[in-house]
């Protein structure tokens, strides 16, 4: 029996899982490739990508899929690209960076797509970037969390939070809190060690110190932590004015639930990358703060195509039975990716990666996120991040004031 268990390697597990997943999806009638609608004329322009359609990132992967499909459907209803229809070839990367690498290789060498766009999340994007660089393909991506790791000169980040978000974003957040007139005096930072989260939390720690906040607690936990009882007990013991939760997905919810069971509600709580639906819809999520680039209300809804995007996304998300069917930042990131790609192809009348990259580097593009530029270090532009808050079960932008939802202001205890 011992030799039995020892003989099963991780590689075997991964291979078996991939095979069985493919089999299962086939049995269930699901397909990973998503051909887009009817062609305006001529052979389609094929644009390849992977998304996390299964695995731990799948809930956000589906948001990206819906947003991309909305764009492709709309463009095919009009003139397509260069008068040709667009076909989006999407493969399921199962939330795995290693598989993402293989699939991008396949898209470029076997499927021979004309262009590629990025997958969802930092790890898979990093994998796709390496493949794109090897084949000289341009890569527009939309959810890369560690700007300093983006070294390839033909990669373009739609996730516009600047080259040093670990400095700029915590300052934006603390500016918002200070402007409320109830600036916190003490802080507790509880953070996942997930790489794209951890460096931002470390940055927030330094910024808080520089701005004179007294640190009562700093805790790190492993990604995938299941039990937040003891961590909650430590937070309650510290009782800070402001709780920074460096969370991914459900971690913030789990900590809030554990705190609630201790009859404790944090005064001000910020969640870095929360799962939007569970946090907005949970009673303890009220007043939760987070980072965003887009929410479906003015002034964002007045940006180019935004109103139509918000409406169409919502229709599809309701149909897909998503718990939070509003077009939030993740959906807008995917949509803006296509807007930038379309702008470059239309302006250059070319599908040549180098020509497109050159154009993107030298031009600004109006998108649902606002006007994006890619001319800074690492092809990053300005930090466009905003602060959003859960109010009455919905996420709304509260800072900067000019981007706040109409009639909405930051709610403080």
């Amino acid at each position, binding site marked *: 029996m011992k030799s*039995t268990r020892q003989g099963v390697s991780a590689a075997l597990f991964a291979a078996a899982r991939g095979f069985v997943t493919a089999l299962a999806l086939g049995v269930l009638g699901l397909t990973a490739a998503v051909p887009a609608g009817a062609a305006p004329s001529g052979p389609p322009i094929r644009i390849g990508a992977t998304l996390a359609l299964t695995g731990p990132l799948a*809930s956000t992967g589906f948001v990206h899929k819906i947003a991309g499909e909305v764009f492709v459907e709309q463009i095919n209803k009009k003139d397509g690209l260069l008068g040709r229809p667009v076909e989006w070839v999407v493969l399921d990367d199962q939330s795995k960076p290693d598989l993402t690498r293989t699939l991008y290789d396949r898209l470029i060498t076997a499927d021979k797509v004309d262009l590629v766009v990025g997958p969802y999340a930092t790890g898979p994007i990093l994998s796709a970037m390496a493949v794109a660089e090897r084949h000289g393909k341009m890569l527009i991506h939309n959810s890369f969390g560690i700007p300093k790791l983006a070294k390839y000169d033909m990669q373009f980040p739609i996730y516009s939070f600047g080259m040093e978000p670990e400095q700029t974003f915590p300052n934006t957040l603390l500016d918002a809190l200070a402007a409320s007139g109830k600036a916190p005096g003490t802080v507790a930072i509880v953070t996942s060690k997930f790489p794209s989260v951890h460096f931002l939390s470390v940055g927030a720690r330094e910024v808080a110190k520089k701005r004179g906040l007294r640190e009562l607690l700093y805790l790190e936990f492993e990604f995938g932590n299941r039990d937040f009882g*003891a*961590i909650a*007990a*430590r937070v309650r013991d510290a009782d800070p004015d402001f709780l920074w939760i460096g969370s991914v997905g459900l971690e913030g919810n*789990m900590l809030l639930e554990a705190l609630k069971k*201790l009859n404790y509600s944090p005064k001000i709580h910020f969640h870095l990358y929360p*799962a939007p639906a569970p946090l907005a819809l949970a009673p303890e999520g009220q007043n939760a703060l987070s980072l965003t680039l887009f929410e479906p209300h003015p002034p964002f809804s007045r940006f180019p195509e935004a109103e139509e995007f918000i409406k169409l996304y919502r229709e599809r998300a309701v149909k897909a039975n998503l718990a939070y069917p509003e077009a939030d930042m993740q959906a807008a990131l995917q949509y803006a990716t296509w807007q930038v790609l379309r702008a470059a192809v239309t302006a250059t009348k070319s599908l040549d990666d180098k020509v497109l990259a050159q154009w993107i580097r030298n031009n600004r593009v109006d998108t649902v996120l606002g006007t994006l530029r890619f001319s800074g270090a690492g092809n990053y532009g300005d930090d466009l991040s905003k602060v959003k808050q859960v109010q009455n079960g919905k996420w709304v932008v509260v800072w900067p004031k000019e981007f706040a939802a109409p009639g909405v202001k930051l709610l403080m205890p």
Partner: protein
Amino acid sequence: MPSATLLGQSLLSGIFIGGLYGLLGLGLSLSWGYLRLINLAHFALAFLGAYLTYQLAGVAGMHILLAVLIIVPAFFVLGVAMQWLFTRFSVGEFASLLVSFGMTVIIESAIQWLWTADMRKLQLEQGTVSLQVGTLFVPVTEALMFAVAAALSVATWAWLRFTYVGKAMRASAENPEIAAAFGVDHRRLALLLSGVAAAYAGVAGTFVAVIYTLSPAQIFAWMGVVFAVVILGGLGNPLGVLVAGLVIGVSESMTMAVIAPTWAPLVSFTLLILVLVLRPDRI
């Protein structure tokens, strides 16, 4: 120096999560110990139970006890059917690992197909209620879960130890040929035990639904630590699984409280390695 309240609260938290480890490990331990099947699908069944609880109690508005009364017998039948298939196709111990892994992925895909990859939360009023005892807070759902885990472990232990069926089961696991010579029908017993193990997965799933937010990929998040619990507790040892769950749960929780949360995952696997080195006969 951590306060007494912090230590007490962390101890409670460790006991409760340990109870869940024990509850999730109970069925796995039984099928591994007595049927020689390493049934990874046990985790998928637990999450299927969680999603069904969400559907029945959350979406359909059924009382949660009624949902349990539907899920547990249904899972018993499912467990019997799985065992019939394992026997029909002569799935051995090593093969069971791969076959049940495949079944896990199929169940995960089915869950995603039915409920999407979106996260689902069963919002029950009583789900976050706590009782205050001195300076400590006792979450009612977790306390109930621990009580159920302890009751099932003790009942299963007593069943295996004192009843004819239990003795036959142990005899059959020890030496199937001799047991058969005494009239023990191993196949029927295996069907019964597999049904019981799957029903336990259904019970665990109900508590998972009440306590946690659900997403299909979480099936795999519990495997490592529950395997450690099952091996530490001894295969087919219901009380051992509960005790191992408590040891790991409390160790992790106290590590988080006194040292740092990042050290917690090391605890369960360090204990596992120590047991494998010092007591290899436990497997």
